[in-house]
């Protein structure tokens, strides 16, 4: 059966509404993809700064480790007994 002249305006309005919803969804998806991609790029690309710049100083733990690994002195004093118990002779 042929559609009547009275049915046509309501079908056009519904079609335009569906199209508008679809366009809005596509735009929102595009914005979300762009934003997600940008965030992913910023967080993974080595050339992008993720934090505020800080001065270049060695962490305290590292500095302590380096200091501890240097040659260090023992403790000696004048002898108190005779004869000595041990001997250091050349190796």
């Amino acid at each position: 059966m042929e559609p009547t002249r009275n049915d046509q305006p309501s079908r056009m309005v519904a079609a335009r509404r569906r199209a508008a919803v679809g366009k809005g969804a596509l735009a929102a998806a595009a914005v979300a993809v762009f934003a997600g991609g940008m965030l992913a790029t910023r967080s993974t690309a080595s050339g992008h700064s993720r934090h505020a710049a800080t001065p270049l100083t060695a962490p305290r733990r590292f500095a302590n480790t380096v200091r501890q690994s240097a040659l260090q002195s023992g403790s000696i004093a004048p002898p108190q007994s005779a004869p000595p118990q041990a001997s250091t002779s050349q190796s």
Partner: protein
Amino acid sequence: MSAPALRFQAMGCDVQVAGATPEQARRIRALFDRHERRFSRFVDDSELNAVNAGAGRAIRVSRAFADMLELSLWAARETGGLVDPTIGAALRAAGYDRDFGDGLDRPQPPAPAVAGCWHRIEASGQLLRVPAGVELDLNGVVKSRAVDEALACLGGEGWISAGGDVAAHGAIDVALPGGDAVRLESGGLATSGRERRAWRRGGRLQHHLIDPVTGRPAQPRWQQVTVSGATCLDADVAAKAAFLLGDEGPDWLDERGLPGRFLQAGDRAVTNRSWRRSLEGALACT
């Protein structure tokens, strides 16, 4: 403190242990034996010989070997390359090619010199590549480290001595070369010199303290150098470096706050500022 209860030979030197229980003494002896089997140039199937045979290609070494090599490279860095772990070929060229007890004097002159090159070693964890033609010798570091490890085996007061390196739990008096003594309150004492490990090649005197720049036994300014360090390893490394530095040895030790005593010909002893300050400070506290 007690007299030594255990004596044995290991790594070509006399080892003495005082204050150890029988179980601790057994563990200490096993420790020295284990190090000798792994690091000696004169044990055919030692890991050191396997590494030297594999020079030029990347090889995987044991965790213990990697740790000792790391200490040896640390010693080289701390001394500006004076205590170099790559002097194995230089020692062999000078004639130290067998255990000292077997006699090293020969009428032939020494072979061409081989300079040290510790900075060319590539190591990452247990992966190691020694440059082709280079031979490692870690003996000095291994011996002093073994004394430090053995001391950790003692539960209470006691001391360990191995070929001039002494470390103690509790204070002990230690005889010094040339007839003097000092009280070791903590850490270790080590003496380096050329008298004990010396031999002749082609009529020329050779010894085991190699100048890594020339690849030849160093021209000695001192007979013996004794250093006090926080550990035997520190003391031994510093004593070797100070010996090789000659006239600059006392100041080099002072710059690092390390007490040193230098014995000249005729048994005349010279001490650096840090040594004198240590003894004077101890007197002021009594």
